[in-house]
């Protein structure tokens, strides 16, 4: 076996790509040979064709941009608030004693269960979706940040203290870096949840965005192709952004943490 083939065989990415490609190929063949009804489950190529006939790239781009805008802003704020509150709850005893029970009480509620309340509080516009996405990011991040802070090796804090640090400098120069790997895990989980919640919120109440695009197609009796392309787009977008977060994490803590 030559070197390239061996490298391809050994690479997870290559194996994954072959698997995905195989699945698409089987789907294409099944649809073309009439094994499945192309009206319900069109072949990938046909689905793209159908979508192209109904939508311009501009419409798709616009919906995509809205979805991205919502998830970035909602996630950004939710994750930041989660990090700040989680770190503070882990560091300041009294604050932790107050904040933790509240967080534990609200955390098990799925973000989507807030939708009716969010609509009553914020109406059908952007703030209600922002709120739901915020929650999607907030809880995983706050939990992991708190957990990370509580599981810091006390020797590291002692080492920092013997080098003249205390209070806020000790927090920022020792505790936060020590908790960073846990925090990063929470951020990644929070991103996935935010993204899922985004699409669900757009399905329920929105007039633009990828979720809206696919549910609208269904409600107006449009083509299955648009729905399939929309779903694939959502999956692809999540895949790419998640990989980007993964790569950033690896760059940030990979070498010293070994992940």
């Amino acid at each position, binding site marked *: 076996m030559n070197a390239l083939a061996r490298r391809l065989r050994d690479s997870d990415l290559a194996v994954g790509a072959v698997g995905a490609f195989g699945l698409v190929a089987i789907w294409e063949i099944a649809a073309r040979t009439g094994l499945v009804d192309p009206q319900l489950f069109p072949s990938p190529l046909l689905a793209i064709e159908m979508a192209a006939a109904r939508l311009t790239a501009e419409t798709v781009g616009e919906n995509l941009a809205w979805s991205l805008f919502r998830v970035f802003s909602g996630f950004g704020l939710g994750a930041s608030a989660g990090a700040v509150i989680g770190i503070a709850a882990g560091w300041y005893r009294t604050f932790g004693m107050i904040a933790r029970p509240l967080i534990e009480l609200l955390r098990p509620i799925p973000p989507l269960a807030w939708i009716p309340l969010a609509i009553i509080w914020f109406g059908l516009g952007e703030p209600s979706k922002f709120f739901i996405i915020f929650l999607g990011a907030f809880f995983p991040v706050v939990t992991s940040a708190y957990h990370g802070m509580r599981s810091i*090796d006390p020797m*590291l804090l002692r080492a920092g203290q*013997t080098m003249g640090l205390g209070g806020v400098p000790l927090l920022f120069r020792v505790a936060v870096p020590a908790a960073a790997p846990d925090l990063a895990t929470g951020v990644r989980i929070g991103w996935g949840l935010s993204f899922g919640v985004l699409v669900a919120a757009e399905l329920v109440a929105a007039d633009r965005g990828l979720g809206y695009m696919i549910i609208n197609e269904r409600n107006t009796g449009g083509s299955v192709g648009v729905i399939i392309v929309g779903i694939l787009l959502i999956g692809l977008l999540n895949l790419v952004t998640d990989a980007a977060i993964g790569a950033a994490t690896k760059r940030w803590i990979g070498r010293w943490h070994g992940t």
Partner: protein
Amino acid sequence: MAPRAHLALRRPEWSRGEHPVVNVPFIEISSVRKSFPARGGGAVSVLSGIDLAIAENEFVSLVGRSGCGKTTLLNIIAGLEAASGGSVAIAGRPVTGPGQGQGVVFQQHALFPWLAAVDNVGFGFRNAGLSKRQRRARSMELLRLVGLQAAATKYPRELSGGMQQRVSIARALALDPQILLMDEPFGALDELTRIELQQELLRIWQARRKTVVFVTHSINEALILSDRIVLLAANPGRIKRIFEVGMERPRSRTAPSFNALYEDIWNELSS
């Protein structure tokens, strides 16, 4: 230094005679007790009635069986743990926390995993008013001292146990503390590196006038390095006997007086 009457310690028995080392206590440990809460209520006594006066520039070793309280005592001197009773004072000031001139080399190396070796060493320089380049140069110098200049950019997880230990020694030396508290600092080293670092430590101790409290399991090491060797007994931890090592440095490991004292300490330790 002239002995000051109000600080002068009643000279303990061991130092009567040829080697009047202690006259002004620099680190004064008085009736220190420590107990930890026991599982299922109550308390276990880990240290009881520790009295020890250490003079400025003195090199004192603590030896004793595993679990007899050496690390606990060191932590109390470092100000990292509060005594349950009694007091520790440095230069007459009660120890209330770390940062009163105590530098610590921990038994577990406790390096910051997110910093490369050179940045671990330079960690404490941040508030010392040095430029980034000066900090780096000083850190490199210290790494060279412990023979690790080639590993400067490696992270702790990329270093062997002995290398990590040397980085943490360099880190403790970086701030040039008056007092060095070292908890089995050479435990994970090969014999050759260990002997080299013993020599280096003695050189630094003599050149920079430091007071050292040094925990070791090696009687040999304690004999090579120390002015006095404090033997602790366990359950609860207490001072069993203090040995004065009156030999000139550099010491020979094969000298009859060396071996005689070794014998003494060994007998006391194992009895």
